[in-house]
């Protein structure tokens, strides 16, 4: 029996190792690129770039972290612990900002809040002031503007993970605290929040990695983070080795932080009675408090979704009246959806494989394999794309060398030319979301079930198909949707690796933004948001499952 388990596990571990190698290859390619370069780069960086870039990055991350955790956990508690009119709607609507890319939210708000935009124009009219020279609100092209704008679209990650945790928390603990005389606020601060720490940390990690690797909003709003500095090194000074060195250094710091957090968490035990929880019964709020709760929950939805979406709809209508819609936009929508869909399928398959390998591998080194496979999420998109390039073209070259003499024809750029390179880059970049989701889903499957199935003669593949996949479905669906939405929004890798003549919505939008024309930009931006909307709404429905199947977010990352 012991031998059979080992042989079944071995093939899963081999597959997972191949996937991890696929993720590591572009990072290794970056390592190779980093070996060249001029020696005076770091002198320059240390003297003039890093002090400010590190400080600004930390300020940005701290600001976004505090805001997203505050909004995310407060909203999660509000919709799980209380009942008020409209709660069913805000419960899922709070996830809508996930569909809005950071670069879109940044430029929408610049338009809305500009001195010559609608808000300040109306304000001046109200105050009887003629010229914007006499009265202006502070410019959003600033650190605080960037923190707020990133936070209103990133808080859903914290909301999603924390809400799942609150939904699973046994009401018993809460009741005990209540009978000991703790008020509802006290319960939140002293019981629910500490118990939800793993979930908050998972959500927060996603938020911080997104913020750290963000280039769209930060660059647009004039905040020079480390990622923006890496760009300047590479693009403006054509110093790819230098940029690769910086990116790898940043990756190392991120890894160290993630490991430290994991170690710190391991010291504590979260003996949540999660297998048989009695869910929290929401407390019904009365008139005033209900209205206040509703208002509080509408603010983040409005900030992260309603306002930018309304702005885009308005601009789109104006553009359609002015010039109509070009047919190219529909092709671009199709390209975007197809690429994202393919990438989601591959990413999910890879994520399940890695997570399952960890499970059947039973401790030792396999968990490290899963951590390695998740590395892509911690590397900025363009830098990763630059690492993917040589890997992809090497595969093409080797294939030609091996198969060329056999077939008598060259495969050419069959990966870059077919879109496979983009799908590969997406998979590497977002595998963490899929493997994390799969791990958390599998962690809900009792080992006893495994043992029983094994006794009845089921192999590893059959157990996966008949036990793990069905039981982990909500968690896997959540992961798939997150991956899909992220692929839809992805820009830098798409831009660099897509086939000749193929545009996606994001690349079209970027082309216009670079030109500063914003001609069809509103239409395209609206399409990105709308196409991302369906999965987000599906995500919202899936993420409020029966308690038994609720994804255990502890295992994420």
């Amino acid at each position, binding site marked *: 029996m012991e031998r059979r388990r080992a042989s079944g596990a071995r093939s899963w571990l081999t597959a997972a190792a191949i996937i991890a190698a696929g993720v590591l290859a572009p990072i290794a390619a970056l390592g190779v690129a980093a070996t060249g370069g001029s020696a005076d780069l770091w002198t320059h960086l240390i003297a003039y770039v890093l002090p400010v870039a590190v400080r600004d990055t930390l300020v940005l991350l701290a600001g976004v972290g505090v805001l997203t955790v505050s909004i995310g956990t407060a909203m999660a508690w509000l919709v799980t612990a209380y009942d008020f009119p409209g709660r069913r709607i805000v419960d899922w609507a709070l996830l809508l900002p996930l569909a809005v890319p950071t670069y879109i939210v940044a430029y929408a708000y610049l338009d809305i809040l500009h*001195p010559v935009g609608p808000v300040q124009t109306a304000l001046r009219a109200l105050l009887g002031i003629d010229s914007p020279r006499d009265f202006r609100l502070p410019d959003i092209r600033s650190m605080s503007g960037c923190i707020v704008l990133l936070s209103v679209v990133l808080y859903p990650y914290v909301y999603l993970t924390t809400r799942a945790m609150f939904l699973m928390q046994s009401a018993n603990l809460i009741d005990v605290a209540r009978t000991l005389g703790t008020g509802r606020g006290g319960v939140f601060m002293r019981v629910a929040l500490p118990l939800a720490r793993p979930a908050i940390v998972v959500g927060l990690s996603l938020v911080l990695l997104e913020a750290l690797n963000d280039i769209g909003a930060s660059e647009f*709003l004039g905040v020079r983070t480390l990622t923006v500095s890496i760009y300047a090194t590479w693009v403006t000074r054509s110093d790819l080795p230098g940029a690769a060195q910086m990116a790898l250094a940043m990756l190392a710091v991120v890894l160290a932080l993630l490991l430290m957090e994991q170690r710190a968490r391991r010291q504590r035990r979260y003996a949540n009675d999660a297998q048989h929880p009695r869910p929290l019964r929401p407390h019904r709020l009365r008139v005033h408090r209900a209205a206040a709760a509703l208002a509080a929950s509408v603010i983040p939805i409005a900030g992260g979704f309603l306002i930018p979406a309304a702005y885009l709809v308005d601009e789109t209508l104006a*553009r359609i009246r002015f010039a109509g819609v070009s047919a190219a936009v529909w092709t671009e929508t199709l390209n975007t959806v197809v690429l994202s869909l393919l990438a989601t399928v591959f990413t999910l398959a890879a994520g399940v494989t890695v997570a399952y390998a960890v499970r059947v591998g039973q401790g030792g080194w396999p968990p490290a394999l899963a951590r390695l496979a998740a590395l892509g999420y911690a590397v900025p998109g363009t830098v990763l794309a630059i690492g993917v390039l040589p890997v992809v073209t090497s595969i093409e070259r080797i294939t030609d060398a091996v198969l060329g003499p056999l077939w008598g024809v060259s495969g050419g750029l069959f990966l870059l*030319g077919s879109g496979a390179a983009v799908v590969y880059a997406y998979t590497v970049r977002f595998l963490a979301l899929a493997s994390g989701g799969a791990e958390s889903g599998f962690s809900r499957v009792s080992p006893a079930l495994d043992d029983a199935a094994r006794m009845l003669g089921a192999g590893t593949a059959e157990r996966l198909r008949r036990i793990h996949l069905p039981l982990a479905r909500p968690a896997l669906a959540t992961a798939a949707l997150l991956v899909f939405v992220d692929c839809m929004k992805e820009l830098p890798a798409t831009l660099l690796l897509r086939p000749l003549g193929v*545009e996606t919505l994001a690349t079209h939008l970027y082309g216009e933004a670079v030109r*500063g*024309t914003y001609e069809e930009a509103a239409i395209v931006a609206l399409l990105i948001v709308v196409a991302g909307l369906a999965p987000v709404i599906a995500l919202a429905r899936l993420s409020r499952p029966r308690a038994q199947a609720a994804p255990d977010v502890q295992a994420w990352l």
Partner: protein
Amino acid sequence: MTHSSIRLRRAALCCLMGLAATTVASGQELNLYTTREPGLIQPLIDAFTKTTGVKVNSIFVRDGLAERVAAEGTRSPADVLMTVDISGLIDLVDKGLTQPVQSAGLERAVPANLRGSKGEWFALSLRARVVYAHKDLNLTSITYEQLAEPRWKGKICTRAGQHAYNTALIAAYIAHHGEAQTEAWLQGVKTGLGRAATGGDRDGARDIMGGICDVAVANSYYVGLMRSGAGGPDQQKWGSAIKVILPTFAGGGTHVNVSGASIARNSPNRAAAVRFLEYLVSDEAQKIYAEANFEYPVKAGVAVHPLIAALGTLKVDALSLADVARHRATASKLVDKVGFDR
């Protein structure tokens, strides 16, 4: 996995293959890699295809064009590499990704200082780095040097110092005045910034209208794009809120930059590629550059757009652009050093 999702996957794969199939190069096609935004060159591509019957497949890549072509190596389908600024062109040449071209047509149309000496690159259109000023401001002329004067403290808007448009201007300043003086100047201009150095050139006009700045450093063709109404009614308002001054270096001329192109080293359709470049400097194409993009044609004798002609007579700075491009890395480092983009 359900049947419907498998079917969807298959459909998706077919779709992707279809996309791939359209990009395979054949005799009457040519492949264009460009850092120039697709909207700006599409009219030229369409006109070329109409005239010659040669189909152009294009891909817009911003950062990493050189890396992509280099990685593709000898199997690269790229025929023509097009960039938005001189540094990008020189970078491609330096990395060995281009090949020389001998063409009487190109040499006749493009002045010698606007092409590589061996025909490794050719400028196709010019633009000037100009100053937008509030229309009521009492200002009729200005030098780049004067932008550092205390009178502009908190009144200048421009895009990021690390953006190619600004690094090229700073590089030209270095070529004129040397590194030390440029640093002091850049420090002065930084003190002049009325907001974070970011965004696009049109934001300069909008921010002047919004009272954030009095002057903005920006490209000439945006004036035409705004004032013509091509970008919609809002932009027309921005364009009319400013007046445009053609600044010069003290004792020199106005800083210009180019969009240009090279033939890729491993171009599979070289003949078509040369034909494309020759077309781009023809009277017809140069007129499109002037009319649709509001740029200055490189070819003598082709008229500029009336909106651009109205800005005044352009006196191009005499420095060689290739020399300017050599100072780009230093310019970029100075931007870091004075903290221009903070």
